[in-house]
């Protein structure tokens, strides 16, 4: 138990990432407000970003810019941070697209609640079908 606790203390960024991920996934799956679902997605993605960046970090490591004078300096691994830049761009585009869809849904149904939308859809499009 003691060993486990010590490991948790040392690896706390991963622990935090795990908790954030669970909070995010829970929000996405249980909330019916479309905005809250979207926020959940963003929390979940941040958790993954945190995990990657923690993996590239070295405690006390310097900024990874090659120093000609003392090449022995310990630098952090820049690759995960660079990858997460791409990840953030992807996450922003997903958010933008989802917001656009929410606006479209609000225009048609006048609400941003997933359950209410499902009810209205059943009432309005029951005979029309999906086509």
């Amino acid at each position: 138990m003691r060993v486990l606790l010590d490991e948790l203390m040392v690896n706390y960024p991963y622990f935090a990432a795990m908790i954030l991920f669970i909070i995010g996934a829970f929000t996405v799956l249980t909330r019916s407000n479309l905005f809250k679902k979207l926020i959940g997605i963003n929390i979940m993605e941040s958790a993954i970003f945190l995990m990657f960046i923690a993996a590239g970090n070295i405690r006390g490591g310097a900024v990874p810019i090659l120093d000609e004078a003392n090449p022995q300096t310990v630098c952090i691994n820049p690759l995960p941070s660079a990858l997460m830049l791409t990840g953030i761009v992807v996450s922003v585009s997903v958010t933008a697209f989802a917001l656009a869809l929410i606006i479209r849904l609000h225009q048609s149904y006048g609400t941003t609640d997933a359950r209410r939308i499902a009810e209205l859809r059943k009432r309005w499009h029951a005979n029309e079908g999906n086509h």
Partner: protein
Amino acid sequence: MRATIEVHLPVFVVIMPLFVAFVLPTLARRIRLVEGVVTSTTVLWFLGAGYLASLVLIRNGNPIGYSLGGWPAPWGIELSVGSLSCLFLLMVAGVSLPVALFAAGNMAHEVGGPKRITRFYVLCLLLGGALAGMAVTSDLFNVFVLVEVATLSCCGLVSSRNHPLAAEAAFNYLILATLGSALILGGIGFLYIITGHLNMGFASQELNRIWQEYPHVVWMAVSFLLVGFGVKSALFPLHVWLPDAHSAAPSPASAILSGLAVKGYAICLIKVLYNVFGVALIQELGMHRILTLLGMIAITAGSLFALTQDKLKRRLAFSTVAQVGYIFLGLGLANSMSLAGTLFHMASHAVIKSGLFLAAGAIIATTGNDRISEMAGVGRQMPITMAAFTVCSVSLVGIPLFSGFIGKWNLLLGSLEAGNRLAQAVIILGSVLCAAYLFPIIRVAYFEPAPAADWQDPGLPQKTALILLAAGVILLGVAPGPFLELAKRAALDLLVMK
């Protein structure tokens, strides 16, 4: 000149559709020109894929490597075109061509004005480029980026139909697919943390050396990846978004989504499982049993759900869930026969399902109704459309001389080799259920008295597209030669550890 083209062909097949997608909006309102450009792009694309496949076959299946930007493998992104990539590229480009033909001049009633139609084509080409990228890449992070490009274009395609139902389906799809992407990125992260490589070959070597030191991380990685790709390729309990999304999309988009996009994620999963983990490690972890079980459940449940649908496009969408089950079943059985069968079935299902969705689209556009019970008389009044639908249905059931038979036959041989009685039973049961949900449509269309409506086959490009797809189904069934050869070589490549 020729040498230069040959060297850069692997990246050309990915870049070309993406590049055309970015140029297309400048032609915005000249819709004829846009359609011409898109169709000629798919022709060129198909020729490129065919040339690449012939190069690989000449090299006896030795993969062609390509380092992006001239950076060699562990540092730069490596593309690798082997038999698997060629088979998939041929499938994507070969199906895109008839779909582009079908869409020409036929999108206005589903999508809207010329600007929206142009956007629709842009999304199709982006999806095509991403799928081609998935086929050739051998870099884990590149897989994630391509998966995201494909996901966003898929959601865009679903929402391109100007209807609130489509917007709702697209939103649900987007949320679940993004959940899947987060899991995939997490899985890739775990692999990177323990191996220190993103290149599949290097990661695989490292993983097989050290995995016993980190069994829990390996388990986390493999389950994150399985669930992530499972959501995106609509593996049974995770398929909830598919029926709404695929039936709400415009018909040519449904054809691409059901025929190609779902397979793209499956190809990524195949690559990650077999090229990174390797077949030995999968069996060590017991993953093959989970895959087999999930596949069998998906075949049975997908088919049963399809039986209960009265709406044509929804029935076809649930049929896709069942056919994805065959892919996972073949992956789980993990021998050369079953893998070859899976890969061949993947390609033949792409042709069949696009044919079915396009025919369904033509029928729905003409009759204005998507209920199967009200399709009486379609067979006599729209002979070409319904003939194509019938050929594709018969093939999906798996009757000899049609393409579906060869994939399922190899899968069956694979399950005999694996000695898995239950799998044999499920493969045959799947075919029977498939007949049970497709043949009633044909019966209603041909043998029930027709109403006094004046329905007609769609225009010339649409008819050509349907005939091309039906001919493809028959060609793959009668002379599967080079395609089966590619599938068998790809299966052997997957099983041999590098």
